[in-house]
């Protein structure tokens, strides 16, 4: 017998996790996105707990997309980049709003990449792109595997090119990602996938 369900209309989205060296890597990717880029991006970058929202403000000033610190309960909008606030985990609700949490650190980190990625995998399912960038611990590897298990697209920065290789290496070994790319190639891939999704939705 068929299971009776309300049909779920999922949106496309991108999640990015980064640690040591992430500031430069994120800057490079975000500033390369064109005006009108339509996918939302949620970012967990490991950062000192007492930092302010400098990173979001700085990136916003440099890029053609809107960049902001994530607020609790905020609805996810297309083309907006949300950065997890220092000392909070960022989670994605399945109604595509944002939740913050002060629960235990995971992989010594809050925000943790795994926490963001796992919740995003449930919410976006196969329409999610997960990206693990430079970093010096294992955070993000399990989360990227969750994205892959749900049929999402997985991208890891080439560890040889990363400022810190441990995090992309761990993600590569754990999740066997679809793409292992340089930063420039990651930007190109995101733009390419965005175009593809745009084509899909206009054909529907």
């Amino acid at each position, binding site marked *: 017998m068929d*299971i009776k*369900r309300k049909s*779920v209309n*999922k949106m496309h989205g991108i999640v990015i996790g980064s640690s040591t060296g992430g500031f430069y890597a994120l800057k490079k990717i975000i500033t390369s996105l064109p005006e009108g880029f339509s996918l939302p991006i949620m970012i967990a970058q490991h950062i000192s707990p*007492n930092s302010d929202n400098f990173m979001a403000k700085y990136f916003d000033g440099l890029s053609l997309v809107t960049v902001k610190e994530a*607020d*609790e*309960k905020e609805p996810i909008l297309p083309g907006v980049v949300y950065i997890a*606030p220092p000392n*909070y985990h960022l*989670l*994605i*609700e*399945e*109604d595509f709003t944002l*939740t*913050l*949490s*002060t*629960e*235990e650190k995971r992989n010594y980190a809050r925000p943790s990449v795994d*926490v963001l990625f*796992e*919740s995003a995998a*449930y*919410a976006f*399912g196969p329409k999610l792109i997960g990206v693990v960038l430079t970093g010096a611990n294992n955070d993000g590897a399990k989360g990227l595997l969750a994205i892959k*298990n*749900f*049929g999402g697209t997985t991208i890891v920065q080439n560890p040889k090119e990363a400022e810190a290789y441990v995090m992309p290496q761990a993600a590569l070994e754990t999740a066997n990602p679809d793409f292992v790319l340089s930063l420039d190639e990651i930007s190109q891939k995101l733009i390419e996938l965005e175009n593809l999704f745009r084509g899909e939705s206009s054909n529907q």
Partner: protein
Amino acid sequence: MNLYSDELNQTVNLEIELILEAIFQQYGYDFRNYSKAHVKRRLLSRLSTSGLKSISEMQHKVLHEPGFFDQLLRDLSINVTEMFRDPSFYLAIRKEIIPILKTYPFIKVWHAGCSTGEEVYSFAILLKEEGLYNRVQIYATDFNTNVLEIAKKGIYPINRIKEFTANYQQAGGRQSFSDYYMADYNSVIFDQSLKKNIVFAEHNLVTDSVFAEVNIIICRNVLIYFNRDLQDTVFNLFSDSLINGGFLCLGSKETIQFSSKAGLYETINFQEKLYKKRIV
């Protein structure tokens, strides 16, 4: 557990709704209006270490084993805190609220969702240093009796003291932090005189009503786990508990601005989320 498809994911979501309903009906604790992502994360994390196969199995266990419910209650309530957490919050209190409190003959404080008590003792220390402690009554409440027991004792692991001390100094502390505690091999016990004017009591923000009229409410990093409707219920409760001109102090990422009660308050410090109930 394998939930690698949208179908299975939706089944899990349904199981979660059912277990929350079961917990509410059997034990009276209501998590039905908590953030779903948060609850799911906590339950799946318990599931993965429990040896159980599904949330439905977990529901059976929680209904038949009160001991397992205690475990889940701990999982679902977040009790991660520290002394003088967000030092800039305490600096703002010293600067913007303390001078007004100094004009009051008596001050009632409600610390709602006080967890294991670190932030209650922090506020008690601040009031002591500002010369206000002897005219204050602090009600420190939480729905979780396990954490209240820890709060009442005021004993914390010694390995946290370094972090607490750094916070205390950044929060405008005026003494040596070690004046406030005695160290043992593995733990520190806070000065028992700090407890003199603190009452620790069980109170559930979701299901209980007003119990006192107070001058200040401190409720930090509790509301982020609630959905908008539940947040609104709690803001109603707070508004009924605060005297006119009283202060509401929230966590740095929480705001009253989307609540139907927003109009009752003026913002004292936007960054630190300090609000004052208007005198109407």
